């Protein structure tokens, strides 16, 4: 069975908060290289680590991780805004 690709928004969330990989790794209790692996999508986190990440960012898991590629945040926000205005 082929391994499922899991996409994430870790890099964007980390950059938004102005954190380095080392800071995020220390906050999550993992190695800083693991953050790089997660961001590049070369390693899929365990359920426990995924919950820890979502708790740290204060966001639901599905906002951070997805099985489908994410749209750019700006595009997502803009289309949502337009849809709201249209309604």
């Amino acid at each position, binding site marked *: 069975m082929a391994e499922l690709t899991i996409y994430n928004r870790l890099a964007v969330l980390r*950059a938004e908060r102005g954190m*380095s990989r080392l800071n995020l790794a220390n906050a999550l209790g993992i*190695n800083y*290289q*693991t953050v790089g692996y997660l961001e590049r999508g070369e*390693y899929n986190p365990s359920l426990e680590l995924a919950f820890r990440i979502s708790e740290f960012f204060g966001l639901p898991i599905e906002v951070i991780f997805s099985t489908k590629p994410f749209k750019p945040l700006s595009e997502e926000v803009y289309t949502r805004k337009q849809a709201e205005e249209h309604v």
Partner: protein
Amino acid sequence: MMNEQESRSNEYLRPPLWHGKIAFGKVALRLTLQKREASQKSVKRFRQASLFELDEPFEQKSAVIRCRLLVLGLYLSFLACLTGLWLTANVSAGLEHKLPFRIVNFIATQPVVVLLVPLLILLGCYFLLRLMTYEIIAWPERFLDERQQIVRDRAHRNAYKIVKVACLLVPLYLCLHAALWTAQTPVPVATHAYTLVRSSKFSIDVAQITPLQGVQAIHINPALPPTGEQRIILYEVVSQPIIESFNANGVPISAIYSWHTIAPHSYEQAPTVMAPSWPNDPTSLLLYYGTLLLSLLLMAIALPMSIVAWKERL
């Protein structure tokens, strides 16, 4: 905020204690300020780099190449160790047919160098590899995160598989090699030979080759050192002894065989070059088998490290 900055900058404007060195103090101040600016810039650049990892691909590529070169160096030095062991063990067993005489002579006279140089390179590569992979391989499990644990477990699993296959293949190769080599060698009829062949050109103790099993190189008897240069010709026993002499007790004292040269190959040998009594003395034995065991042990330990260094970004 401004006051803080001013007070900080004023620290550098204080006159030096020794007034005669005011000018020097100003230069030093300028240099210190420039240095500080440069360090602040580099810190800023580092923060930016660590935040966005802009130069990550270049660093990763160079790190991967470095690791892989080190792994290659490790395996090449291991091969060099094995080659050195093989050469030193076979230096007096017909190696002169395959290699130039100078190389054979060097191996015969300097076996320690032949063994220790590759071993030292192997040790160097091993310690460098250990230094690169210690975060994953050497640290206790409680200090590793889940990814590192997975990487370490996978490396140990792969290393175990490789060792398992090697443990199966090496005896298989040895058995096949022995079987094929024996099958290809014509078995001579002669079963024993008791004689001593002496001449002005060479001295050969034929008693060393009993019982005869296939084609054998006849070694020079070190107890009978020849004088001057000598020509060594390799012989093969092709038949039963033609004439045998016995003493009163019925013990054969001499025999004449029909000989012919194995190959028309002969070489001049300097009187100083003698095949060493390798590995007969305890020091040589310790060096030979110590090198063999140490190189095998290092390779077994370094196998998971080399897998991690080859596959992962460190």
